[in-house]
């Protein structure tokens, strides 16, 4: 490798990279900017700075209800998806059996299926089963979309988990449960927490499935959708949207840090790699 190729060539490529980032993030930047603007319509030039829209948020009972609903759905879906993900990820990373790759592919598939189709299919199935639409049905839907994400995070944390660590624990006199508590759990805990955070974020932001599967109870994205009909409510929506954005960004960052820590723990061990 020559010294020259270590640096990004100046000129056109840098300009392209800059435009690329602008294209990705400019729309997102508008949200917080207009949320602190005094004018109720999102238009330039800006008229002045205010936090009024944020102060109004806690005084809206419908929004608090929606936030509470989102919290319930998010926690339930992330716990369920992570538990199911742990079982699947452990089986896929630990054992070799025919159909292992196919199973992995099928679990990951909901990631690329059109969400509208998934939502309509689930609606049909749940109605056939005689379930009445409620937050519970939303949780089921969110578990389905969260599992691929959970699997991605967990397999990267479990991959390369040296089985001899568990054997070493048993060899030193520890019982199966003690081994799980003192070795397995501490090693994979970062990956599990990371999976919980990712799933919670996905569920918090998810709209289509929640829209189809909820009854009368709205989650935050559905509440936002409802508010968009009223022009006067827009600044509040922008403020709420900004908060969701910040929360998602923080949760995903923490999740990624934890995932990397888990992957480092399991993968860079053993003298063979030293």
């Amino acid at each position, binding site marked *: 490798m020559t010294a020259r190729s270590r640096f990004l060539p100046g000129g056109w490529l840098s300009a392209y990279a800059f435009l690329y980032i602008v294209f990705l993030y400019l729309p997102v930047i508008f949200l917080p900017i207009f949320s602190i603007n005094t004018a109720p319509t999102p238009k330039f030039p800006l008229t002045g700075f205010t936090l009024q829209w944020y102060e109004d948020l806690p005084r809206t009972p419908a929004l608090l209800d929606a936030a509470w609903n989102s919290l319930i759905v998010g926690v339930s879906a992330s716990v369920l998806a992570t538990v199911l993900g742990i079982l699947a990820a452990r089986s896929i990373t630990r054992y070799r059996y025919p159909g292992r790759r196919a199973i992995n592919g099928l679990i990951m598939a909901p990631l690329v299926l059109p969400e509208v189709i998934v939502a309509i299919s689930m609606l049909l199935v749940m109605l056939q089963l005689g379930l009445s639409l409620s937050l519970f049905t939303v949780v089921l839907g969110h578990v389905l979309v969260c599992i691929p994400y959970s699997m991605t995070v967990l397999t990267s944390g479990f991959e390369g988990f*040296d089985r*001899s*660590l568990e*054997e*070493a*624990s*048993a*060899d*030193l*006199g*520890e*019982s199966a449960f*003690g081994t799980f508590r*003192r*070795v397995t759990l*501490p*090693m994979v805990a970062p990956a599990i927490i990371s999976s919980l955070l990712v799933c919670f974020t996905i569920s918090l932001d998810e709209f289509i499935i929640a829209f189809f599967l909820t009854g009368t109870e709205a989650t935050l994205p559905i509440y936002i959708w409802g508010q968009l009909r009223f022009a006067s409510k827009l600044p509040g929506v922008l403020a709420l949207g900004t908060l969701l954005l910040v929360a998602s960004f923080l949760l995903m960052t923490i999740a990624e840090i934890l995932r990397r820590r888990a992957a480092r*723990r*399991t993968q*860079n*061990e*053993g*003298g*063979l790699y*030293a």
Partner: protein
Amino acid sequence: MPEQPQRSMIEIKNVTRSYGAFKALDDASLTIREGEFFSLLGPSGCGKTTLLRMIAGFDNPTSGSIAVGGQPMEGIPANRRPTNMVFQSYAIFPHLNVEQNVAYGLKRLKLQGGEEKRRVEEALAQVSLTGLGKRLATELSGGQRQRVALARALVMRPKVLLLDEPLSALDKKLREQMQVELRRLQQAVGITFVLVTHDQYEALAMSDRIAVMFGGKIAQVASPKEIYQRPVNRQVADFLGGMNFVKAEIVEESGASLVVDTLGFGRIKTDKPKAFVRNGGGATLGIRPERLRVLWDNATAKFEVAGKVVERHYFGEITHLIVEIPGLEKPLSVTETNDFGADDIPVGTSIRLAYDPEALVAMAD
């Protein structure tokens, strides 16, 4: 060599381990004595690791029995066996520091009044890691991890320490240093060590006795010297370094000796190996390359063969000569140290080689 009567520590009786039709271990029987350094030596897939894992309790025999310290191990899980293991990957717990790793097994014993701390210190001192107790596993070199794994097992004061290819991940220099240290440590603590290795020099340098294994069967159990000098068959001979094989015809066979005729070495009387099976009228003799000596100038020896150097390979402290002997179908390998100028013998030179008929051993095919 007179065998000293010693108490046995591990009794392996007719142990077979099958996976479907494949037998990883086939009717293996073995006695390992108390306090000895015992090696299981063989190529990969010979069943040595399977046997070690069955002693540790990570695997169970399909048939046969294993006893440790006189106690049958059947049905006893790994966590209640009087054995401890040093894993090939070391299996250091990455979320614990050195001290916590070493104290891992002691925690369950709930030792009183600083006894745990004292034993951890002692174990760290035994492997020369004093002062590194607070280091994380990720901050250690390969050699240091190896020592942590050793200390973690030794601190449990097991009856038997099992070592699964513990030196294979280290570089050559560190490996040779650890061989000496391990041997010294074993003699200091007096615990029975069972080492699995595919490295014949490692086994020869460290062990009191070696079991050579091929294809799930134990081919020979003996001291390093005996295994090297009197291998029971060609496979064992080949695995433990270079060996010149010479075809011979049996002239006379008695209880303990054989008289054979060879083309290159003439008529030779040799000890008959225990496992010797007469294969028609033929037999195979073997002589190690270093047991053949170049005769310089007019020097003579009682037993010598004449030949011509066809190849020469220089290895620093030694030179390898390939010498063609009239009548022998394969040329002989000769190893000479480079103190007398073996590295200067030109290819094509006619030379004479001295040998001791004792060094020619008969073996099964």
